[in-house]
């Protein structure tokens, strides 16, 4: 049983490290930051840091999808997977380098000790659906969303 677990972990780490970027990135697996997984969706893998821009994202490896393109239905399902049946969150579609991506922002006014705003970007990289979430104490401006989209476009 232990060897199966070890194999799974090895497979996971190989799989996760397969995600690259033309920018310098650092991936910190959830096993290294075990408390960070509390309250997060099962697909959470760890933290992705862009070293040049100092941006930091939660990294999610999503369940395979029949289609290799994000759709409104797919993004709504992922929204619930990340944040639960929350209030209406506007979903925006943008063009990424590997097809369309969707962005959606959640807000929890009750948060007093942690960032209340979260922006998710979901799309396909290497034909695999992935999601990144960034947290902030303030709402994400269109400029910031554009910056995040640019970082997404560096992923390979």
């Amino acid at each position, binding site marked *: 049983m232990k060897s199966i677990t070890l194999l799974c972990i090895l497979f996971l780490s190989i799989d996760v490290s397969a995600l690259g970027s033309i920018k310098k990135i650092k991936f910190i697996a959830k096993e290294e*930051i075990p408390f960070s997984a509390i309250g997060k969706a099962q697909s959470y893998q760890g933290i992705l840091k862009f070293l040049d821009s100092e941006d930091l994202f939660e990294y999610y490896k999503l369940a395979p999808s029949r289609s290799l393109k994000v759709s409104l239905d797919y993004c709504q399902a992922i929204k619930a997977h990340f944040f639960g049946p929350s209030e209406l969150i506007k979903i925006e579609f943008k063009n990424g380098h590997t097809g369309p991506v969707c962005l959606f922002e959640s807000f929890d006014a009750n948060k007093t000790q942690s960032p209340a705003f979260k922006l998710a970007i979901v799309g396909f990289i290497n034909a695999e659906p992935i999601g990144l979430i960034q947290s902030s104490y303030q709402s994400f401006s269109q400029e910031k969303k554009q910056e995040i989209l640019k970082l997404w476009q560096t992923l390979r």
Partner: protein
Amino acid sequence: MDIFKVFLLLSLFSGISQAGMHCFSNPKEYAAKQTLLPPLLNNLPTYLVTDNFMVKAVTSLELKSDSIRFFFNATRGIEEPVEETVRVCASETKIEIHFPNGSQEIIEVRKPDEVFVRNLINMTKVENSRFDKLSSFVKNSRVETPSAKTSNPGKAYK
């Protein structure tokens, strides 16, 4: 023992375990279950801490006007505090924290005033003042992450 008896015993134990769980997701439900809950939860808010040379961590469960609020923060092993509205199910031996996205955290109750979190740390029930003091220490001791710096420039991190 034949297989039928094994199934009978398993279902009996499972029935006892289910019967021992009491769930609540708002103050009204909590009031109805309060006396049935383990000592750790029968008088919310509950504050728990870990304070050793390896890690300092704080967690709380509080009643809000129409919800139950969970909070967790630590000096290590986490990038930002967890703060969510939750549903709680509890028995004498475990506490389940159910998050809105369907994920859950199962916490083992070891003593009437102590739990074991993530198979890593023991957390002990404390008074509000002790929680506040350590919570403030944890917040200020966390290593500043780049995103925290860029997204919250007005916040003081040490």
